[in-house]
C-alpha cells in the first residue's frame, strides 16, 4: 500500500477498509454495468484502466462513507458524452489526472478521496482507477445507484449539492472550467456542449463536496450493492443458476427491494435518432423486442437516451424513470447496452425500483418522466406491475 494512502487512513482513524483487487474490480464493474440500465459505457475500458493502475503496483482501497471526516474535499472523476464514442475512442492516459489537478487548482485544495458519480461500467471503475493513481481512497457511495444521461440527475443535487465547479478535459489537453454556481441544468448544458466540441466525449472532475455532504446527499454503500450484484452473477455462472434470479435475490439482500422480471425476447428493430450525438450529445432512439417462450406474441418497446428510459409492453407503460430497466443476456446475465445492441440479441428485462433518495419530489422533478418530455406522471414501478 502506498505510504500516502496508509497515512490518510491512519489520520482518519479508519481500520475498516476493503482492498479492491482485480477480482473485485471485475465484480464491481459487472454489477455496476447491470445497474447502468443500458448505459454507462463499455465496461472493458474502465476495467482495463483499473487493471493497469493495479499492474503498476498501486493500491485501491474502498472505505465506508460514515467513517470519513466531515471536512475533507472529495470529487467525482467521470466521463460525460455519448457511450458509443467512448466504446470506439478510449481516453489518453493523462486526461483524467489533468481534470483532477485543474479542479484542485481552481478550488485551491487537494482532493482527498474519490466518489463515483453513478453505477456504470466506466464511471464506477474510473473513480477506482483515479483513486489508485492519486493515492486516495474511494468512498462507497454514488449519486444515483444507476446511470442517468445528464450531469444534474443526482441525489446530490436533490440535497442541494452542486456539480460546480466542474472541470472538463479532452485528449488534446483542452481544459474547460464550468462554474454555474447552483444552476445545475446550466452546468449540464455547458458540459454537454463542451463534450460535443471535444468530439462526443469529455473527461470531467465534478461535484466537489465535503465529507459531510457525502454522508447527507449520496446513495450510501451503492458500490457494495453493485459489488454484491456482480458477485451474484459470477456465482450464478459458476453454479449454473439462473443469473436473473440471483440478481433479484442479491438486490433483495442488499437493498431490500423486489426486482421484477417482466419480459424475455429478441431485438427485432432498432431505430436510432439521427444526429443525436452531434445535435444533443446523446445516443437516442427506440428498440423493439419480440417475446420468446412465456412471452411469445408480446411486444416490448423501450426508449433510450444513453440509458433505457421507458418500457412499454403491448402498449402499456411498465416502467418510468427514475426506476431502473435492465436488459440482460438470459444465459450469462451480461447486460445489453444501448451503444452495442444489435438485431437478434436475446434479453430478459428486469425492472428495479429506484433508490428512495432518488424518488423524492425534487428527484421526480429533476429526472422523472416529465423532465424527459413524456406526458405521464411518475408512477412507481411496483404500482405499474401489480399483476406480475
Amino acid at each position, binding site marked *: 500500500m502506498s505510504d500516502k494512502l496508509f497515512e490518510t487512513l491512519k489520520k482518519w482513524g479508519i481500520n475498516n477498509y476493503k482492498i479492491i483487487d482485480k477480482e473485485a474490480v471485475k465484480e464491481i464493474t459487472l454489477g455496476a454495468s447491470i445497474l447502468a440500465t443500458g448505459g454507462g459505457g463499455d465496461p472493458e475500458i474502465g476495467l482495463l484502466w483499473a487493471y493497469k493502475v493495479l499492474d503498476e503496483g498501486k493500491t485501491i482501497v474502498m472505505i465506508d462513507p460514515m467513517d470519513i471526516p466531515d471536512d475533507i474535499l472529495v470529487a467525482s472523476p467521470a466521463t460525460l458524452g455519448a457511450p458509443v464514442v467512448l466504446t470506439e*475512442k*478510449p481516453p489518453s492516459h*493523462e*486526461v483524467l489526472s489533468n481534470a483532477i489537478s485543474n479542479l484542485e487548482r481552481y478550488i485551491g485544495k487537494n482532493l482527498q478521496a474519490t466518489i463515483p458519480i453513478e453505477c456504470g461500467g466506466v464511471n464506477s471503475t474510473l473513480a477506482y482507477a483515479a483513486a489508485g493513481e492519486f493515492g486516495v481512497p474511494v468512498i462507497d457511495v454514488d449519486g444515483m445507484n444507476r446511470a442517468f444521461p445528464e450531469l444534474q440527475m443526482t441525489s446530490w443535487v436533490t440535497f442541494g449539492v452542486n456539480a460546480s465547479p466542474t472541470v472538463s478535459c479532452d485528449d488534446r489537453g483542452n481544459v474547460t472550467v464550468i462554474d454555474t454556481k447552483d444552476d445545475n441544468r446550466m452546468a449540464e448544458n455547458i458540459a454537454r456542449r463542451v463534450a460535443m466540441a471535444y468530439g*462526443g466525449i469529455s473527461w470531467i472532475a465534478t461535484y466537489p463536496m465535503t465529507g459531510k455532504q457525502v454522508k447527507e446527499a449520496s446513495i450510501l454503500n451503492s458500490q457494495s450493492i453493485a459489488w454484491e450484484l456482480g458477485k451474484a452473477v459470477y456465482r450464478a455462472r459458476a453454479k449454473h443458476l439462473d443469473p436473473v434470479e440471483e440478481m433479484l435475490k442479491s438486490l433483495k439482500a442488499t437493498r431490500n427491494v423486489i426486482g421484477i422480471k417482466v419480459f424475455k425476447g429478441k431485438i427485432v428493430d432498432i431505430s*436510432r435518432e439521427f444526429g443525436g*450525438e452531434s445535435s444533443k450529445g446523446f445516443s437516442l432512439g427506440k428498440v423493439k423486442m419480440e417475446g420468446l417462450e412465456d412471452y411469445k406474441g408480446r411486444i416490448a418497446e423501450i426508449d433510450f437516451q444513453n440509458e433505457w428510459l421507458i418500457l412499454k409492453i403491448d402498449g402499456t407503460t411498465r416502467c418510468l424513470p427514475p426506476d431502473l430497466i435492465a436488459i440482460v443476456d438470459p444465459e450469462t446475465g451480461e447486460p445489453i447496452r444501448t451503444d452495442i445492441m444489435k438485431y437478434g440479441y436475446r434479453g430478459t428485462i428486469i425492472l428495479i425500483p429506484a433508490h428512495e433518495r432518488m424518488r423524492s419530489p425534487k428527484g421526480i422533478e429533476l429526472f422523472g418522466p416529465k423532465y424527459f418530455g413524456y406526458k405521464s406522471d411518475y408512477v412507481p414501478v411496483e404500482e405499474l406491475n401489480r399483476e406480475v
Partner: protein
Amino acid sequence: MGKDVRIGFDVGGTFTDGVMLRGKDVLAKAKALTSEDVTSGIIHALDILLNTNKAEVAEIALVSLGTTHTTNAIIERRNLNKVGIFRLGAPATTAIPPLTGWPNDLKIAIGGEENIFIIRGGKEYDGRDIAPLDEDAIKNACKKIAGKVDSIAITGVFSPIIPDQEERTAEIIRQELGDNIPITLSNHIASISLLERENSTILNASVITVMRKAIDALKTAVKERDINAPLFIVQNDGTIMSADYAVNYPIFTVASGPAASVRGAVYLSGIDNGVIVDIGGTSTDVAFIVNGFPRESSVTVTIGGVKTNIRCPDLMSIALGGGTIVKTRSQDVIGLGPESVGYNLVKLAKSFGGPIITTHDVAVAKGLVNQKLDVFESDFAPYIENVKKLDKKIIDAAYEAIKKRLEVAVDQMKTVAGDIKAIFLGGGALVVPREGLEGISEVILPPHFEVCGAIGTTIAEIGAYAEGVADLEIEDRNEAINKVIEKAKDEAQKAGAIRHSVEILDIEEIPFAYMPGKREKVRVRVKGKIFE
C-alpha cells in the same frame, strides 16, 4: 453425368476427416492422420476418397475445408507471425495501449510490445481528425520494424465508419516495407468497439502465414488430381467463404471446426437442442445446439486468452482425446494428459504394442471399443493381449477420471439445470464413457459420427453481405433497408446460393452523424444454401 458430388474435410489435431457426398448419401468417408505439414494428411484423406471410385473426378462440384489451423496456432502460440501493430488514435486512446490484458506468452509469440505504435491520427465520430495522420511517424516506425515483423495490423479510431486513414497507413507501409507484407485493416475485420476490434485484427495478422500455407497446400493437392471445383473454407458462423478470400481473413475460421460439427450433428441426428461432444485424438470440444445452430457466445469472445468482438460459437475445449496419456506410478493413476500421443497412437499405445497407456487403451480394456471403425486403417487393438495384462485398478481409476473430466466440461457449459441429450461425435466418440454420465439423459451416436465435422462442411451455406448508404430524408427506412437486403441476396446468389434459401443473419445501421440530413450506412449479412 451431373456435377453434384461434394467433398468435405475437417482437419483436426490428430485426424483429418474426409467425406464424399451426393445429396444426403455418404458415398465414401476417410480418416487420415493429420500430419505435421497438414498437407499430406489432407492428400491422404482425399486419395482414400478418390480411390473408392464412388464418383468421377469430373462430378465433383465443391471441395470444402473446415480447419483448426488458426485456433491451434493461437492457442499453442506456434508459428505465429511477428506483428507490427499500428493504432491510429493518439493523443486519445493511450490510457489503454494495444495488447493490454493479453497473456504474456502470446504477447511474446507475436513479437512483444516493441512493435506497437500509437500514431497520431484517427477520426472523431463526426469525421473530423482526432489529429492529422502523422505520416512521418509511420515511416519511422517502418524503419524500426523492417525485417523484424512479417505481418501488419492497423486499427484506426472510427475506421468502421471512415476507413481512409487505415488505407493511407497501409499505402505508406507498402511503400516502406514492400508489397509483399500482409496487412490487416481493422475495418475489414469487425465493427465499432476499438479494443476488441484491435485484438481481432492483431490476431488475424498473426495467423496469415499459417492460413496461407494451409490453403496453398490444399489448392495444389486438388489441382494435381484434376479436380475442377471451387474451394471453400468454413467460417465460424457456419457459413463458408472462398479460399482466396480466406487467405486474408484467417481469423474468421477460428472455431469453424466446431461450427461445422454442430451443423453436421444436427443434419445427421435431427436433434435441434442439446449438447455436442466432439472427441478427437488430442482434445474434446463441447458446444451447445440451440434450435439447430451453435449457441453463440454473447458480446465478446475470448480466443487464446484475448477478448475479441468476433461472433463465434460458444465452445469449451478440454485436453481429452483418444490419445490422451494416462500417467501412472506403480498401481496409481497420477494424471490424465494434457499430453496426447496424437497421431503416434498406432505406434505408442499399448493396444498397438507400444509402451504408453492412453484413453484408447482404457476404452479397449473396458470394452467400449470393440470393433474397427471402417475409416481407420488399422484395427482397434492388434495387441489386445497387452491391454488385457494391464492392472484393473489402473483401468478403473483412469475410466473414472475420464468420465469426471467429461462431466465437468458439460456441466460448465450448461446454462440450464436438469439433464440434457448429448450427441457424441468425432473419431474418439467411442473412447469415452457413454453410460451413467451425470447431467446427460441420453447419449446419441448418429450415423457417420466419426466424420460429422467433414459432413458439416459440405452442407455449409454461403455467407455474403452488402452495404449501402441510405438517405432517410428522401427514402423510407424500411425500403432503404430492403434494398440492401436484396443486394446482399444478389451477392449470395452470385457466390452460389439458391436465391429463395437466403436468410438474413444480421442488419446493422450506422448513422453518419456528422452529415447534414439523415444518412446512414446499412450493412446486411445473409446466408444461403448451395444445394436444395
